[in-house]
C-alpha cells in the first residue's frame, strides 16, 4: 500500500519505461482512449505526451449503497483494461471488493493511502448515499456512508461518481426513496465531481474518464456533471437506426416485420432521443453489440431520475399525447423530443411529489 507522497511517485512514463513498454505500444494504448473519447485522432500524440508526464496517482474506491454492478462492469473494460490501469497508470490503494485485505487491515490501508496522498488522490464513489435518520441506513466499519464520504472527499483532488446511483441517487433514490438516497454532488460541493452514470456505466467510459483526467484534468462537463466527450450526444443522434426514424419506419411490436427489419424502436419505448450516453459508438462487451443492436430500446439509464420516468415500453412522449395516433404523428414529424420528454419527466416528478405529500399528510 501507499508509503510515498504523491509528488515522489514516478510519472506514468517512468513506470512504462521501467516495464519496457515501448513508445508505439503506448501510443496505441492512447489511440484506443482518444477514439473512445471521440477526440480527433490527430490529438493522440499530444494526449500520449501529456499522459506520460502525469504522476501515477493514488485511487481510493469507496462503495456505498450499491449492487457491485458498476465494479463488475469496470473489471470488464477492454481498452484500457482495469489491469493495465492498475499496473501502468494508477495505484489502486483501496477497493474492499478487489483487495486481499479485509476488516481493520483494509481500513488502515485506506487511511494510510489517504494521508500519504492527501489533496492529490482520486476518489471513486460507487453507489448512492442514504441520508435519512442521520445516515443510519448505510454503515461500514462503524461509520455511516455519509461520514465516510465527507472524510474521504476532504483530501481528494477530484471525485468520480461511477454509476447512476453515485451520480444522481439511482434506484435507491427512486420513489418513494425510503433511505433518503442522494448522489455525491448533492453532498460534496467544494470538490470537482465527475459523474459517469449508467446502470452500469460502459466500462471503457469509466476507465477512459480516469485516464483522461490524468492527462488533461477535469474534463468539460455537461449540466448533469457528465464528461461531454462521452455524454455529448444522445443515443438517438448516434444510432444506426436513426435513418428509419427519419423516414417514419418504426417497429410496433418486438416480433413484427418492423422489428425484424431493424427499424426504429421509438414506439416501443426507446429513450434514445432523451438519453445522453456513448452506447451507440463504444458499444458493450468490447464493442460486440449494444441494446438497440440487440433489438431492445434504450432505457435511459444514464439520465437523472430514470427509474421514475414511466414505463420502459411507452414512447417518451406518451404522457403528452393522449392517443397513439398523436404519438405516431409526433414520431414521424420529428418533434423536439428533448423538450417534450423534459416536460413529461417534470410532470411525472410533480405527480410523484404530490403523491408523496398525500402519503405523508
Amino acid at each position, binding site marked *: 500500500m501507499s508509503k510515498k507522497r504523491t509528488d515522489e511517485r514516478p510519472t506514468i512514463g517512468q513506470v512504462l519505461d521501467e516495464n519496457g513498454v515501448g*513508445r*508505439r*505500444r503506448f501510443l496505441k494504448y492512447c489511440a484506443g482512449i482518444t477514439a473512445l473519447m471521440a477526440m480527433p*485522432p490527430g490529438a493522440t500524440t499530444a494526449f500520449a505526451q501529456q499522459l506520460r508526464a502525469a504522476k501515477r496517482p493514488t485511487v481510493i474506491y469507496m462503495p456505498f449503497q450499491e449492487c457491485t454492478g458498476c465494479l463488475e462492469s469496470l473489471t470488464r473494460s477492454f*481498452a484500457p483494461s482495469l489491469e493495465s490501469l492498475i499496473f501502468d497508470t494508477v495505484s489502486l490503494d483501496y477497493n474492499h471488493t478487489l483487495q486481499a485485505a479485509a476488516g481493520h487491515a483494509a481500513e488502515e490501508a485506506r487511511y494510510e493511502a489517504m494521508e500519504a496522498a492527501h489533496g492529490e488522490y482520486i476518489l471513486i464513489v460507487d453507489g448512492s448515499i442514504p441520508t435519512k435518520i442521520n445516515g443510519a441506513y448505510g454503515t461500514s466499519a462503524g461509520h455511516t456512508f455519509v461520514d465516510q464520504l465527507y472524510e474521504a472527499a476532504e483530501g481528494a483532488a477530484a471525485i468520480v461518481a461511477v454509476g447512476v446511483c453515485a451520480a444522481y441517487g439511482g434506484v435507491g433514490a427512486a420513489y418513494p426513496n425510503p433511505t433518503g438516497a442522494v448522489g455525491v454532488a448533492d453532498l460534496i460541493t467544494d470538490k470537482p465531481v465527475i459523474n459517469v452514470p449508467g446502470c452500469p456505466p460502459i466500462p471503457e467510459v469509466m476507465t477512459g474518464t480516469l485516464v483522461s483526467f490524468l492527462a488533461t484534468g477535469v474534463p468539460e462537463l455537461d449540466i448533469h456533471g457528465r464528461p461531454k466527450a462521452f455524454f455529448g450526444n444522445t443515443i438517438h443522434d448516434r444510432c*444506426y437506426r436513426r*435513418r428509419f426514424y427519419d423516414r417514419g419506419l418504426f417497429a410496433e411490436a418486438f416480433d413484427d416485420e418492423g422489428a*425484424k427489419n431493424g427499424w426504429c424502436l421509438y414506439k416501443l419505448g426507446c429513450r434514445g432521443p432523451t438519453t445522453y450516453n456513448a452506447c451507440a459508438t463504444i458499444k458493450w462487451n468490447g464493442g460486440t453489440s449494444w441494446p438497440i443492436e440487440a433489438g431492445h430500446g434504450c432505457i435511459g439509464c444514464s439520465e437523472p431520475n430514470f427509474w421514475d420516468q414511466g414505463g420502459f415500453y411507452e414512447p417518451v412522449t406518451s404522457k403528452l399525447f393522449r392517443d397513439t395516433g398523436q404519438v405516431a404523428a409526433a414520431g414521424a414529424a420529428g418533434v423536439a423530443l428533448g423538450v417534450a420528454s423534459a416536460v413529461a419527466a417534470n410532470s411525472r416528478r410533480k405527480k410523484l411529489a404530490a403523491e408523496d405529500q398525500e402519503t405523508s399528510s
Partner: protein
Amino acid sequence: MSDSIPVTVKSETRTSSIGGGVFAIAHELLRHLENLLETGETATIDVKSLPMAPDEFHEIRKMLGQGEIDLTLELDGPTRIQETAYGGVWWIQHKAPDGRILAEYIEIARFPDFLSAQPDHITEAVRHLRNRLQGAA
C-alpha cells in the same frame, strides 16, 4: 445459434453501388485528399465513431481497396496499416491480443503519423547517443 433468431439488421435501401453512409464518407475523403494535395494538411476519420450498420463498415473497406503497402506490427496485439487503392488514404486498425478492435481510423496523409518518431522519442535518442559517444571518447 444466431441463425435461428429471425431478426436481421438492414441497411438503408441503396440506389447506387455506393450506400448512403459510405457515399457521405467517400465525399469527405475526396475533400481531405484535395486538401492534402493543395496544402499538405493531413486528416483522420475515426471509423468506429461513425453511426453505421455493421455491413456498412465492410462496404467502406471494400470500396477503398488495397494499395501496395500492408504492414502488421505486433504491439500488444496486431496493428495493421494498409495503404488503400487511393494514394494518401491509409486504413489503420489497432487490435488487442484477443483480436478485439481498439481503434480504427482512416488517415489521409503522405505517411501515417503512427509510424513517425515522436519528438520526445527523438529527444531521448539524442540523449542516449550523446552519452554513448561521450562514454566512448
